[in-house]
């Protein structure tokens, strides 16, 4: 006679575990898919695709006025230095963890005309011994993650000059 009650309790227990596990796994799965789409063989290096047009079908609702650059971070073998020259009228540099959290963002207005220059270290890793002055050290919550640079392109005519500056950004392992 206890079997039906046990059955219901069993189902509730399994359902609860599955519910929480699915909810927790989802951001990691989505982020992992995005990172492998962007950087199959290009970890710790910037990729700067052309401006979005009607032919762009990777990410929904792309902004046609933004020039994006991305760098898939792998901090498991040491820190990575990210240097980004900024362009008017708007540049932002955002760091996302493997669980989709946006743990760092800086825009051109905060940088007072200088390049954005940071060293990203993995979770629990020590700060590198030699940090150049003016460079901030940022600790990432996960070893894998993404750097996303957004630049506003004021008009189609403004793009070539901005694109040349965009390609000067670097994302590379840092040997302090």
């Amino acid at each position, binding site marked *: 006679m206890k*079997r039906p009650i046990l*059955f219901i309790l*069993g*189902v*509730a*227990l*399994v*359902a*609860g*575990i*599955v*519910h*929480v*596990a*699915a*909810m*927790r796994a*989802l*951001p990691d799965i*989505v*982020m992992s898919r*995005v990172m492998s789409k962007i950087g199959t063989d290009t970890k710790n290096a910037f990729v700067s695709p052309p401006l*979005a*047009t*009607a*032919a*762009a*079908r990777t990410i*929904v*609702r*792309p*902004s*046609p*006025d933004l020039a994006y650059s991305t760098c898939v971070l792998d901090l498991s073998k040491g820190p990575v230095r990210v240097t980004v020259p900024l362009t008017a*009228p*708007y540049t*932002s540099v*955002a760091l*996302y963890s493997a*669980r*989709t*959290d*946006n*743990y760092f*963002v800086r*825009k051109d*207005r905060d940088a007072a005309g200088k390049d954005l220059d940071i060293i990203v270290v993995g979770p629990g890793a020590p700060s590198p011994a030699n940090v150049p002055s003016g460079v901030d050290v940022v600790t990432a919550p996960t070893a894998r993650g*993404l750097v*996303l640079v*957004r630049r*506003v392109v*004021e*008009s*189609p005519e*403004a793009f070539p000059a901005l694109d040349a500056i965009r390609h000067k950004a670097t994302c590379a392992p840092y040997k302090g």
Partner: protein
Amino acid sequence: MRAFAYWAGILVFGLVLGLGSAFLALRSGNSGDSISVGPWKASLGAGSMDADMYTRARVALFGLLALDKKETLYYTASTDDAGAPLSGDCTYIVEGRDLAARWWSVTPYGPDSYLLPNDAGIYSFSKTTVKREADGHYIVRVSADRQDGNWLPVKRGESFDMTARFYNPDASVYAAPANATLPSIVKEGCK
């Protein structure tokens, strides 16, 4: 055999219930923090760094790699001011003033959420590309047919929506997003 069916039943029902309830939890409750200004609707949850698992899962699905509302604020309109769905068979007059932000743009998207193909290669109008009247306000015609003055092309036979983006909105806007001023959308005629 009966014992096997018993345990398999627990697993199968548990799996279905667990995944089903997860799906329902993600589908509902995404409208809690949405506001509207006329036909323009903004969802303020996207991109904010909240630690609970539901918020994080929702961001992964609906606002992946989004930015905090102090960085960018998005409003989307899928109807005109009268509440009629936006159609590529009609011409609309979008009229307004500069949005209260460091830079702004308005972009139409098709029903699949991608940019609309057009021969002119025009995908948006913005603070720096829109032509203004003498008093500073702008008039843009949204239509599948080429227009004089500001023209934003859409696709005949397809519905569309428009997203207005505020890059670094003024403090007054992100403090009270429901009081933001956005352009009017009025139907001029249909074919």
